[in-house]
């Protein structure tokens, strides 16, 4: 069996498993003794994994050929027609390497592991979820997949799954202890100090098949391949992910849950993707010098970024999967803050929205350092009166767009008018200013401009302005059409003197109270009068 080498990807001086290694080998030895003992006592066939009957494998084969072979290949080698357009590539089942397992590092997965990964898929990779297949279908598929690697039939392949206990309470103290475990085990070497996937080894990592692989962004739990529950996180670093640099760790049991809780605390549950970003009115002056503090009161909106696979020069695996936006404005200016996570800041080389991209860009071109990171905000050049907007990819000939482009190599803003992909022209900046900084895996770009300019879009209070974004990751050789994109969303500027919600609350609350009291008084006096009357009559 191909054994995964845990330390291969780490710098030499960084032997994180020095303390853990002996116990690990000890366990391996114990296990092989156990297997030897079993083998002498029981016939080998009983020990091997469940392989199913001929008929079950045949049923699995048929489903596989219809539903899986396009990606995983008819021979199970991952070389289906869709091999090149997904990264990570579709799994080569002949390798016997599986990422999501409850079995120790280097071992084959259990049937339940495979069942789960087929049913739920692997988020943010090409591996889709299969909710429509029946349990029997999946079982038969598993029997068939096992025929691609002979280790499944070997008596040594009996999986020895770990048991994941029920998680203890999630407490702040545990999170704080977990931070220490995170540091002690040097998770930051790959995942970065703040967990944004920007550790110093991150850009050097490759997987078992020689393809570049990025450490997970721990602040986005929804992108975890094996799920984002606390038990999933426990499993991930306890058993590691075969075929990737993600190691397995021997950590004392109580510290495990502290580490889990720390990792869990880094992310919210759901991305809560937005459809609009609300600007906030600020009475003070707006200037770049204020930096991010300017946006302290502005609510963030997270928009999904996906690959540009529509115009020639396509990007199938964009380096960035979301961009967060905040906006403020005052009587004369508007400011936007764009933040997104990027493994490294690429400041060398050139970038531009119109740079040419060959029709078939080689998968791993030797272009390191040739293209810098960049971002662009797109607005219609003229505020649309009805529903008609410019085409969402750089506009069209009848409806142009303005692109506020941040060249993060030269650290300057540029302004383009777009009349469609391949039809961009640089224009005057109309006072557009920009500041950019990169800190621990996060780019932050601030744009400031006058709300009203002589030519181009003016931003009026109480309006919804269509807005879209493009992000280029230089590390991924992104430039021109090869980029991450969003569809049209809205930037909303509320009226300048927005009535306070507290006033509305007080008004309606008081009104209800008055009505109530009047009612009670009326009822009580009427009742008293009636009572008096009836007493008088008596």
């Amino acid at each position, binding site marked *: 069996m191909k054994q995964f080498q845990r330390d291969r990807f780490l710098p030499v001086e960084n032997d994180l498993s020095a303390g853990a290694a002996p116990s690990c080998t000890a366990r391996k030895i114990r296990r092989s003794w156990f297997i030897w003992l079993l083998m002498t006592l029981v016939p080998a066939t009983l020990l091997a994994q469940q392989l199913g009957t001929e008929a079950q494998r045949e049923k699995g084969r048929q489903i596989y050929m219809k539903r899986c072979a396009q990606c995983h290949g008819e021979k199970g080698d991952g070389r289906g*027609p869709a091999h090149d357009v997904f990264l990570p590539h579709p799994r080569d089942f002949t390798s016997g390497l599986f990422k999501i397992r409850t079995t120790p590092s280097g071992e084959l997965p259990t049937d339940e592991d495979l069942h789960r990964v087929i049913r739920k898929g692997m988020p943010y990779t090409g591996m889709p979820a299969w909710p429509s297949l029946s349990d029997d279908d999946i079982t038969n598929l598993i029997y068939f997949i096992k025929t691609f690697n002979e280790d499944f039939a070997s008596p040594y392949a009996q999986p020895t799954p770990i048991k994941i206990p029920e998680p203890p309470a999630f407490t702040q103290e545990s999170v704080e202890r977990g931070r220490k475990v995170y540091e002690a085990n040097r998770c930051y070497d790959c995942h970065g100090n703040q967990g944004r996937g920007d550790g110093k080894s991150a850009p050097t990592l490759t997987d078992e098949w020689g393809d570049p692989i990025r450490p997970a962004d721990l602040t986005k739990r929804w992108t975890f391949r094996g799920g984002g529950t606390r038990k999933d996180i426990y499993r991930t670093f306890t058993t590691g992910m075969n075929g990737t640099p993600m190691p397995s760790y021997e950590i004392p049991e109580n510290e495990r849950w502290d580490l889990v809780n720390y990792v869990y605390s880094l992310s919210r549950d759901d991305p809560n993707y937005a459809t609009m970003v609300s600007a906030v009115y600020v009475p003070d002056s707006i200037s770049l010098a204020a930096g991010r503090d300017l946006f302290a009161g502005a609510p963030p909106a997270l928009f999904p970024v996906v690959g540009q*696979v*529509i115009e020639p020069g396509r990007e199938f695996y964009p380096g960035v999967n979301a961009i967060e936006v905040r906006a403020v404005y005052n009587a004369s200016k508007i400011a936007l803050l764009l933040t997104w996570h990027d493994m490294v800041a690429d400041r060398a080389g050139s970038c531009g929205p119109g740079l040419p991209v060959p029709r078939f860009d080689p998968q791993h071109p030797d272009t390191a350092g040739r293209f810098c990171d960049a971002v662009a905000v797109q607005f219609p050049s003229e505020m649309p009166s009805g529903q008609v907007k410019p085409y969402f990819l750089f506009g069209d000939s009848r409806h142009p767009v303005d692109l506020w482009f941040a060249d993060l190599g030269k650290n300057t803003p540029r302004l383009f008018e777009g009349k469609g992909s391949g039809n961009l022209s640089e224009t005057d900046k109309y006072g557009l200013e920009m500041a950019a900084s990169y800190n621990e895996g996060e780019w932050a770009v601030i744009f400031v401009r006058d709300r009203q300019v002589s030519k181009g879009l003016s931003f009026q209070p109480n309006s919804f302005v269509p807005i879209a974004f493009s992000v280029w990751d230089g590390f991924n050789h992104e430039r021109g059409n090869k980029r991450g994109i969003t569809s049209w969303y809205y930037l909303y500027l*509320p009226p300048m003197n927005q009535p306070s919600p507290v006033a509305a609350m007080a008004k309606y609350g008081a009104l209800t109270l008055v009505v109530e009291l009047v009612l009670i008084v009326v009822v009580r006096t009427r009742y008293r009068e009636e009572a008096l009357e009836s007493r008088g009559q008596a």
Partner: protein
Amino acid sequence: MKPLVVLILALVLLGLRFLRLSRVLWVPVWWLASYVFLVYGIEPPLPRSIILMFMGIITLSLLAYFSVDSQTLSAAWGAIVRFVTDRRYTIPLAMVVVALPAAVGWVAYRNASKAPNPPLFGRTIHPPPPIEITFKGKKINLTEADNPFRALEKSDPDKFRQHVARGRVIYFQNCVFCHGDNLNGEGLFAHGFDPLPANFADPTTIAMLQESYLFWRIAKGGPGLPEESAPWASAMPAWEKFLSEEDIWDVILFLYDYTGYRPRAKESLE
């Protein structure tokens, strides 16, 4: 309709029947049950505006029912008067006096601090196709054009399978990111687009369209749509930039083959 919700509601209402509930409580319970039914009991869910309309009608008829007979009315009124005047109820009354304005105030606060919703625009999903398109300089009349390889299905099944197989390769190298592996519109990038990529497994897309219609949609993509279909927002690429005429007919064969649907025949138009 969801049988489980209906069953539960029926049981609750039947149970109340035997409890001999006062009318004052009976009316709100019915009102609530109707609301629950409208919101949770119907599949696919009704739009909000329809629910509001129905609830308006139901409120009016329940009120009418409640007030037809003066006995129930005075019984209700008596209950209210007792609640307001009787010493025993002073504490609950005080609680109501405080809680009601607080609740109203809270809702008002929530509404006032929420930004308004962005404008919503409708779009025609299946606009009428043009009569003629120009594909790489060649004119194609859409009312006459038909899939040239469809006839092979009967005349040369092996050849037909080859075309389907080619279509499959084209699909999984070009369309899968958006339309998904199961052709259900749930591809890897689908969450980034609005409108969402078409779901071919749904009976309201390719199952009711002609192959020449699909040819137009695939060749010209989002930008080829008329204005009522929001061409500026559709992420559907114009595949004439990447694929040949044969490629497109092949991928159409694959769409029908994989989903098991049949294209709508030309005759059925007349």
